[in-house]
């Protein structure tokens, strides 16, 4: 198996991705169109997109971002603002419509086509990523983590209290805990309108397309000049700078790219769930995403995909449906769902102490992480040739 993969050289990852996505694409055909399994897979797909975005910032560039949920929020609100009746009195209560589809085209408020908003969300969130990244440029290490955390909390506060902020003709910034709803269903040109009440499969295929796109961008970026600059910066900022890596530009691009994926996924989730509610954007969600990339392996694209799918299923399926009653059957008076963030916290702790390189480690990052913890020998003894098997010089 490995020899076949070796022969594929550069294309190994693309072949593997095509295989995985192909298998995933036919999966929902085995379940009922409204199956909760399909629902779980859609959520997992959206989380994979976000986790891959966070992986660019944390895994590639080594900038610990604890406020990633902010980008999810901004992406979701972009979808909420431009595809719902939130701004209901705009244009004399007739609304603004651009390719919004038959039903949404007759509603008040701003209704743009899903794909347009997706692009807008990516741009807005990319800019937001840079703006949040700006103040951290002079800082290093854990200070960056705290500043991004602060921004995440500030954005969350704006989401929760946004119904107090009004502008123009009494438009609210957000609807706070009452959610902006309903968000328009997705209407892609050339396809029948999506309808989550009858068939979830189109949503799944759409999320697969997004995952494929993000995977492609991730692999291409990682091996690009920019990706190598990120990794160099992560390993040693001073050395990277003296080798001619422009730190400011490289960092800002990492923030922007990583954030853009979060915004994309947030926009998708807003239309899939048909609502944008402020309490989705708590600090815990940032840690949930961080747990995914740590579990899978910081900096390892396949590891992050695995970690995201695994934790997403633990969150949406295993904890609430399979093991939820375990504490009760042991005579304890609580449901396991109460503990889900504790479980993620425990997972982070366990992985970081016992296997900091994650489940599917990226070799270079594994060497950095295990250096000096005693596991370094095991890695150092691997044959040198395997270090860059996937990449030709």
């Amino acid at each position, binding site marked *: 198996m490995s020899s076949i993969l070796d022969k594929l050289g550069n294309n190994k990852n693309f072949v593997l991705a095509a295989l995985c996505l192909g298998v995933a694409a036919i999966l929902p055909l085995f379940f009922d169109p409204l199956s909760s399994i399909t629902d779980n897979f859609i959520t997992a797909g959206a989380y994979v997109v976000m986790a891959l975005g966070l992986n660019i910032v944390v895994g590639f560039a080594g900038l610990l971002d604890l406020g990633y949920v902010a980008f999810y929020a901004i992406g979701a609100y972009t979808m909420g603002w431009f595809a719902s009746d939130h701004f209901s009195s705009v244009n004399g209560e007739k609304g603004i419509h651009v390719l919004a589809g038959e039903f949404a085209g007759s509603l008040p408020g701003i209704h743009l086509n899903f794909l347009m908003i997706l692009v807008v969300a990516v741009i807005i969130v990319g800019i937001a990523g840079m703006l949040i990244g700006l103040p951290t440029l002079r800082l290093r290490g854990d200070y960056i983590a705290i500043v991004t955390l602060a921004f995440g909390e500030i954005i969350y506060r704006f989401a929760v209290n946004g119904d107090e902020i009004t502008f123009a003709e009494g438009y609210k910034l957000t609807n706070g805990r009452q959610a902006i709803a309903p968000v328009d269903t997705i209407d892609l040109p050339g396809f029948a309108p999506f309808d989550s009440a009858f068939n979830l499969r189109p949503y799944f295929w759409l999320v697969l397309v997004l995952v494929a796109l993000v995977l492609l961008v991730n692999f291409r970026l990682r091996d690009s000049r920019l990706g190598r600059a990120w990794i160099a910066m992560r390993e040693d900022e001073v050395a990277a700078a003296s080798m001619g890596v422009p730190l400011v530009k490289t960092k800002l691009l990492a923030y922007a790219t990583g954030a853009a994926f979060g915004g994309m996924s947030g926009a998708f989730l807003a239309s899939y769930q048909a609502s944008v509610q402020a309490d989705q954007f708590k600090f815990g969600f940032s*840690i949930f995403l961080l747990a995914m990339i740590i579990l899978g392996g910081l900096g390892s694209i396949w590891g992050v995909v695995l970690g995201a799918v695994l934790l997403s299923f633990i969150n949406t399926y295993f904890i609430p449906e399979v093991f939820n009653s375990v504490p009760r059957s042991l005579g304890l008076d609580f449901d396991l769902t109460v503990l889900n963030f*504790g479980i993620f916290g*425990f997972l982070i702790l366990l992985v970081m102490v016992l296997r900091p390189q994650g489940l599917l480690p990226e070799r270079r990052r594994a060497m950095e*992480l295990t250096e000096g913890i005693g596991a370094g020998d095991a890695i150092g003894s691997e044959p040198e040739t395997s270090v860059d098997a996937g990449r030709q010089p």
Partner: protein
Amino acid sequence: MSVDTATPRPSGRLSDTVREAASKYGLIAVLLALPVYLAITDLASDGSLTDLGNSLVLGVSNGAIFALIALGYTLVYGIIELINFAHGDVFMIGSFVAFGLWGNFGLTETTGAGGLVAGLLVAMLVAMLVCGTLNVMIERVAYKPLRSAPRLAPLITAIGFSFILQNVGVLWLGSSPISVPDLIDQSHVVLDIGGVKIRNGDLLAVAVTAPLVFVLTSFISRSRLGKAMRATAQDPDAARLMGINVNTTISVTFLLGGMLAGAAGLTNLLYQTSVWYFQGFTAGLIAFTAAVMGGIGNLKGAVLGGLIIGCIQQISDNRIGAEWTTAVVFAYLVLIMVFRPQGLIGEATREAG
């Protein structure tokens, strides 16, 4: 970790001195902007500063509690340069332990003064010991194995531990805030100076914090272990070569930080008369902001920062709205991090660049 006010770095160049002064006094100006603005509007509208005065009294007492928590952050950061993210949740556990002990002791609003003082003192000592031990245990489990790993690794495990402790809290007392008996009649007004009220709770917060801070500073500046702590903070390797047991010293630091958090937990319980599993997360981040504001690694700075952030928090609660307070505090945090990461009286650290 310096006890004394950090002396400015000697520099011959005038521009450096000017820049240093600009950033320091700029920060002070930013800190004063909000209260001064409110004072002016108050004076303009009804000619009285009572409202602001009350906010400041509440701010100082609340800030005294934040100062105790902030000391824990600053002690740990000073010695191993780690943001002990789980520290706020250790403080929360302190409140929970104290609350549990009240139940065991049978303390209620009607308990006599003697019994109350004895019961509370014992509860405080136990809470301090439990939190101190918990903090040492966290260090052993989550930070010690990662001491030579990249700096981000222990920060990540700290976050993991924070979530674990929060869930311990959820299992212990449920997921919504619980109000507890108001043992010291904390809103009883002791002193009324022209409408500015000083309440039992305010006196208590200062009465707990001041002696603890005094004991801590003298411990660190006078005792042998304190000397070892300062040496380890300066250079762990050199300290080891001088025969200092670095591991023990680090454990003692965590013990001290945890004990202060435990005392803060009991004080907060009496002061706020409520307890919640999430209180540690918010208080922890505010206290961390306080530590950074004062200059992380600097004990006096942590106390000063705690008092300032307490006032900012109260003013924001009263004037801007309690639902915005965390955003206001974090906005200050970002401003400080960007423009003066070494804080008010701290020295430049490697992190702050």
